[in-house]
Every structure is written in C-alpha cells, then in structure tokens.
C-alpha cells in the first residue's frame, strides 16, 4: 500500500458529538480526519423544510428532496448526522444528574465528573452556538448564557396556570435555536418544521455550525463523506492506528490513519463499531477488557397524553407551531417522597400541526364529525414526558453476526427491558400528566399505556474503575491510551433531561484534553 497520510486524530461520526469535537480540535491546531458514513448535504436545498403533506401523493413528507441521499438509515445519515433533524432542546445537567447514585441511596451509577467540571464547557458551547432560554434560577436545571427565549404559546400559558395550581412549574424551553441572528446565522423564522431539517441553520446542526466553518477557516479538518467505518485498527503495541473503511457507493475498502481515534457515531452505532473491532487482545470488542461494552443501555423512555384544551376549542387557530415546543416542565419529583429512584420531565406540543392522525379517533361521521375535528384542531396538544432509566443489568447493545447489510456489516441490535423502577416512573409521570391536564381544563383523548424508548444512551459507560466501565472521565478508553469514545454511549446515568447539549459540552471538554496531549507531545 502506498504511504498514506497520518492524521493527528480520526473522528468517526459527524453529528453533534463528532462535529463539535472535530471543529474544536481543528481550531486548536490539531489535524483532523472526520469520517461520515452518509453523503454531503446542502442544508439549504436538500430538505423538505417547508413542505406540506398534500404535496406528496401518499402524504408522507420525505426527509430528503427527490434524488438526494441521506437520513434514510443508520449508516447513511449524512453530514451533521442526527443534529440535522433534532429538535434542539438544550439542558445543562445538574449536580444531581451527575451524582444520581449518591442522591438516590445507591441506585444506578455516578458520573466521574461534577457539574463544576462541565460548567465551563457548557458556557463555551452556549457562547459559540447560541442557546435560547430564560434564566429560571432552578437548582436542578442550571441557568446558562442564553439568547432571549421564544415566547410561550397560548396552550403553554394555560398549562402553566393549571400546573401552578398543583405546585408544578412550567418554564420556557431552552434550545440550540437562534432567537436572534448570530455569527452569520439568521434567527428562527418560525416555519414550524424544525425536525425536517432547518434550511437556514437557525437551529444548530454540526455540519453548518462546526464542520464547514472549521474546514474553511482552519485548513485542519478533512471531511470524508460516504465513508463507512468497519473496524478501528489496533497495533501489536495496544494502540489504535486508524480506521478501516468501506466506500458507501463503490464498496471499496480503505483505511484512514491517525495518531488517535475518537468514536462518535451515536450511542448504538459507536458500541457496534467497537464490537466489530475484534482482535486477539480484545476478542469481544475493542477496549472491552471489562466486559462492560454494550452493557448498561439506558435510553430515555417516553409516555404520552393526547388532549384538548377546552378554552382553545373552536377558537381562531393561531399560527403558532413555529419553533415547535416552547415550554417545559422540569423535574420536580426528585425532591419529593416518591418510592422510586430518579425522576422525569415533560415536553409538550413538539409535534407540528401537519399531521392529524388523531381525527380518526373521534366518534361518529358526517357533518357533526367534521365540525368536531375542526373545533378540536386549535386545542390539540400532546404531553410527552421523559423518564430516566437506571441500568437494569439486562438491557444491552449487541451484534447480530448472522444479519448483515449490503456492506457486509453486522446489524447492531438493542435488547431493552423495563424494570420495576422504570414502570414506577412511567406510571407516576402519566398520573402527573393527567393531573396537570385536568387542572389546566383539558379533555383527555388518549393515554400511552407503556414506555417507549427515546434518546439512546449508555453501552460504553464512563467511570473511574476499569473493571466496571469502558472509558475514563476524559472519554479515553481504560484499555487503549489513544482511543476515545464521545457521545451518548458514555453516559453512566441518563438524567431525564435531553442529552445532546451535554454531549456537545463533553465533546468540547475532550477536544481540550486531546489538544493538550498533542501540545505536550504525548501522542
């Protein structure tokens, strides 16, 4: 093989974690190769941001424009990864979230980090990318450096008043979405389809905010798109030397070499890549001397209540779906006597108004039926609580070697169980949701009766003990000194708060640590 360039760092995955990390490293003078399995995208032209369902015969709005690849499967997402289609909710974790085991008498696990370790990195991410929100002064939901919050919707105000009667607070949501123009990005234009891909990058995505500027301004970042990672390569000296790849389009094998490797392909795929990287030294997957790789899978779980706010029935419909959800009900049960470990929070109304799947549940037919749906439409809200799952000893991520995709890569599978504690949280958050809806003058249409997984976390957890964790507090694997994992997989406990902002802060922290090691000549 011809002599190949050796990068300082090879980062696998261009989403919120990998994109932030690669951009930050490049700005600190580190020479970075960023590998993305999916294609290059043009955020401005490739998504159907402003489409209506009736523009498509089957009423399904595809994520990508006709003929554009990306976002269609786990291995072909595209530059920016899931940050292109996220809802941008951005919370700081609190000290309780980092030390949940101490808070809850030994349940679950602690992070080997304190809030104080993370605070400067939350600061720097907020200054850089722009996070909007209100300063609420809540101990469990630390304030940050915010742009002005988006105003509340009418439905939020009604729910806020209802919840207040029960002593429950509802606040402005915080999002990595600009309410004011910043650093060359325009403010949100409230079109209401954030999760279809924001065509002006008012909503943060790693490609437009971190990756492209770093490529243009530093000359230190090289992006390899349509490049699937198939194995992280290990030397006889127990150091990683790069990543074996497959061209997504031609299926040709390749290799990208580096002095360090960072795996950031989103929780499940990151664990899968390490499990695919088997060697004599690590027969069950790279950096798995502990046997913990793939264990402690702790995704958030959601429930849901669909309801109508009576006061809004039959009222003039407000054009208020822009920015999606505007309010949030932070955790409050963690300070109360509750009979379970951890807690829950809730978002509401983040589904936009373009789908009316609930109409078929209305009784009857004919003109009365049609009018009933019309009257309900401005009043319809979905309550979406998120609960924290603590490790249950059984839920895991593993490879199915017998089930391979068109590139010959094994399917990465999830095994998920709901524990007693999960069910207790689920039932309690559903009860509270019903109470808040009732106190706000709502009529319940439907209630979810079982938890559903959401934000994927765990599987490669961080800890101080190499026997019970895979990476250390700097996201470096205990086993291999130049291999890092940075994304939701390293979370030892999940919090009930949306995780991406913490992943980005962790990526910023790891970038600083890695750049320091390069400066010291340790690599």
């Amino acid at each position, binding site marked *: 093989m011809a002599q190949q360039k050796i990068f300082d760092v090879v980062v696998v995955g261009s989403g919120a974690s990998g994109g932030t990390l690669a951009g930050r490293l490049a700005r600190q003078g580190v020479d970075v190769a960023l590998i993305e399995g999916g294609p290059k995208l043009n955020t*401005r032209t490739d998504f159907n941001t*402003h489409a209506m369902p009736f523009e498509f015969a089957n009423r399904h709005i595809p994520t990508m424009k006709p003929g554009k690849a990306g976002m269609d499967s786990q291995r072909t997402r595209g530059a920016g990864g899931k940050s292109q289609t996220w809802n941008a909710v951005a919370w700081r974790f609190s000290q309780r979230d980092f030390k949940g085991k101490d808070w809850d008498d030994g349940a679950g696990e602690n992070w080997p980090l304190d809030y104080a370790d993370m605070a400067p990195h939350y600061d720097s991410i907020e200054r850089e990318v722009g996070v909007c929100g209100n300063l609420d002064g809540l101990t469990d939901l630390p304030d940050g450096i915010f742009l002005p919050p988006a105003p509340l919707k009418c439905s939020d105000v009604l729910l806020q008043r209802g919840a207040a009667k029960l002593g429950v607070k509802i606040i402005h949501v915080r999002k990595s979405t600009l309410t004011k123009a910043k650093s060359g990005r325009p403010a949100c*234009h409230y079109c209401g389809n954030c999760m279809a891909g924001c065509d002006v990058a008012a909503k943060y995505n790693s490609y437009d905010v971190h990756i492209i500027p770093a490529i243009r301004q530093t000359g230190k970042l090289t992006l390899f798109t349509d490049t699937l990672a198939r194995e992280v390569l290990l030397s006889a000296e127990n150091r990683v030397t790069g990543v074996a790849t497959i061209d997504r389009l031609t299926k040709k094998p390749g290799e990208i070499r580096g002095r360090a490797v960072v795996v950031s392909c989103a929780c499940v795929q990151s664990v899968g890549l390490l499990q695919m990287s088997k060697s004599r030294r690590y027969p069950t997957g790279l950096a798995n001397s502990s046997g913990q790789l793939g264990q402690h899978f702790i995704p958030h779980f959601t429930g849901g209540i669909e309801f109508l706010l009576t006061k809004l029935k039959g009222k003039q419909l407000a054009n208020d779906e822009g920015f999606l959800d505007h309010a949030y009900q932070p955790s409050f049960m963690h300070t109360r006597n509750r009979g379970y470990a951890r807690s829950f929070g809730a978002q509401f109304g983040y589904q936009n108004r373009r789908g009316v799947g609930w109409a078929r549940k209305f009784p009857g037919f004919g*003109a009365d039926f049609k009018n009933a749906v019309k009257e309900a439409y401005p009043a319809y809200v979905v309550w979406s609580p998120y609960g924290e799952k603590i490790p249950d000893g059984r839920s895991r991520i593993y490879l199915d070697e017998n089930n391979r995709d068109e590139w010959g890569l094994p399917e990465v599978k999830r095994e998920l169980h709901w524990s007693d504690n999960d069910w207790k949280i689920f039932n309690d958050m559903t009860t509270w949701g019903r109470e808040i809806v009732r106190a706000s003058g709502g009529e319940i249409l439907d209630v979810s009766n079982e938890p559903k997984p959401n934000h994927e976390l765990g599987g490669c957890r961080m800890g101080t003990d190499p026997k019970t964790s895979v990476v250390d507090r700097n996201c470096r694997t205990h086993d291999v000194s130049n291999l890092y994992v940075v994304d939701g997989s390293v979370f030892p406990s999940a919090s009930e708060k949306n995780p991406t902002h913490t992943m980005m802060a962790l990526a910023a922290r790891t970038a600083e640590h890695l750049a320091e090691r390069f400066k010291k000549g340790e690599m």
Partner: protein
Amino acid sequence: MAERRETLKIIGAISATCTFPYTGNELYGQHAKPHAGHTPGAQASTGPRKFFTEAEFALLSTLTDVIIPDTDTPGASKAGVPGYIDLVVNANPEHRKLMRDGVAWLASQNFAALDPAGRIALLTPLSEVLDKGRVKTMPERFFRLTKSLTCDGYFTSQIGLSQTLGFQGGNMLASYPSCEIPEH
C-alpha cells in the same frame, strides 16, 4: 402562492441585516429551485386509479362523502380522498380483500340508490360499534378502515388542512405571533 412570496419578501428584509454566508436565492434555495415531481404549495396528483374498478371507485367516493361531507368547506371526494385511498390500498396488499369485500357489501345494500338519510341509517350501526370498540363483522371492519383512511386523506389534503382546519403554518414569519389568551 402569492402569500408565500409575500412572506419571503418580509424575511428578505431581515436577512439583509445579518451576515449569513448564503444570501439571497441561495438562502431560500428550496423555493428558488423546486425539484422535479414536487410542486411546493400544490396538492400532488395520486395518478390514475390503480386498485378499484370504476364502479367500485364511485361507490367508495360516495361513502367518503358521507363520512366527511361538503359543508361550508368541500368534503372528501373534492379533496381527492378516494384517489388517496386507492393509492394506499394498492400499496398495502393486506387491505385489499377487506376493501373489495366492503365495497361489494355496499353495492348489495343498494348504497348508491339510497337517499342521504338512508345512507346515514345504514352506516350508523357500524359507527356505533366502532365507537364502542367492538368491531367484529366484515362491514364493521370495512367501515373502520374506510373512516381511518378518509380522515387521514382528508385532513392532510389541501382542502382539509388549509380550508377546513385553517392551517397557516409552513410560512416564514418575521416574528412569533404573540398569544392572546381568549378570556383576557
């Protein structure tokens, strides 16, 4: 479409005040360069009938208009619901037998010849069973599926979403509309 162009103009004034590296048409590239087979703002055609025969399609259309009739806004068939149902049933083989049997049942009841009150009288028992969650027989299952597909097709159509429900979203706004709580 005129309305959309209008909002673009408003936004254009805002973007001039910031230094976004992609300006003008490029910024709103989705609108400047619509892609083949997709016309922003217009309802897509479901194309020629694929599954139902002409006679079946006519009966189905009548049924959808009983479920969602013309009122102050047009009903199901004017909104293109029968074409949508044809497309969905054709794409989902598991629905085909039930839909064909159901339409044949409608024909056996002389559905087309019934007056409006007669049609309502025929469907009311089926709807009551559905609302009680006790669907069992073929006509009951047929009514459940047709009602679901009619709702899905109608309320995502241009007529259903924009005219009947009054959806105004998808536009670009210069600022977020403030909430006027009804009783204040």
